[in-house]
């Protein structure tokens, strides 16, 4: 049952991922990436990570892609008529993509994994205990990073008075 759900999620994720980078319309790109991120959240739920599944939907599908959609509509940029990669770019890009995809998939399937340890369920309580315990400094640092990004983004888009 879990396997069947995973395979459906995986196929949908790859298909919508291709649509997200290949379609010409930016709104279609963003909306199909929403579906991809939902499928990744399903994978998290299957991998004993319920907290991350919720965070994935809240942060990625809820916040980041809404920001993308907002910018797509704000810019209202005309669809580039010349959105064709150059010849050299196409060859190098396709070769790199094939190398990464096939090489990564082959490595993943060929290398025998370490024996499976007992599963640690990533509930909000367990993750939270780790965040305010051993990772407290990084956790506080992230809040500073987010504040800096917030101020930086506002300064970048501010019109000159």
């Amino acid at each position, binding site marked *: 049952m879990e396997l069947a759900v995973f395979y459906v999620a995986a196929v949908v994720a790859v298909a919508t991922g291709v649509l997200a980078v290949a379609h010409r319309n*930016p709104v279609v790109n963003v909306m199909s990436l929403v579906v991809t991120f939902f499928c990744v959240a399903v*994978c998290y739920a299957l991998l004993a990570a319920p907290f991350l599944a919720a965070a994935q939907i809240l*942060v990625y599908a809820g916040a980041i892609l809404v920001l993308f959609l907002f910018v797509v509509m704000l810019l209202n940029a005309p669809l580039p008529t*010349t959105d064709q990669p150059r010849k050299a770019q196409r060859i190098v890009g396709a070769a790199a993509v*094939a190398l990464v*995809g096939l090489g990564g998939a082959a490595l993943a399937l060929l290398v025998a994994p370490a024996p499976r340890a007992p599963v640690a369920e990533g509930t909000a309580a367990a993750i939270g205990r780790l965040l305010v315990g051993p990772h407290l400094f990084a956790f506080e640092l992230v809040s500073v990073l987010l504040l800096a990004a917030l101020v*930086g983004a506002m300064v970048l888009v501010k019109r000159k008075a």
Partner: protein
Amino acid sequence: MSVPTTHIVTLAALLFAVGAGGVLLRRSGISVLLGIELMLNAVNLTLVAFARQHGHLDGQVFVFFIMAVAAAEVAVGLALLVAIFRHQQSIDVDRLNILRW
């Protein structure tokens, strides 16, 4: 039966390749940022898979931090795109060549 780790990592490799294709082959700045998001998600997927494999939650904590950094990256990246669009009425990354020698 639970999902084998190898299958998850294979899916992550495919998603990463698709994202890399978006970064390398598209010329719209928004598509490049979307490709980066897809690659970050692929890496997160491997981290969660290996966290389960080793019965450790540290990998999931790393994913939490990567999500936070990705949110910051997207905010600044999109702000840069808006500023660039105001500057030259285009988000074609091939036209961003004013720093060339």
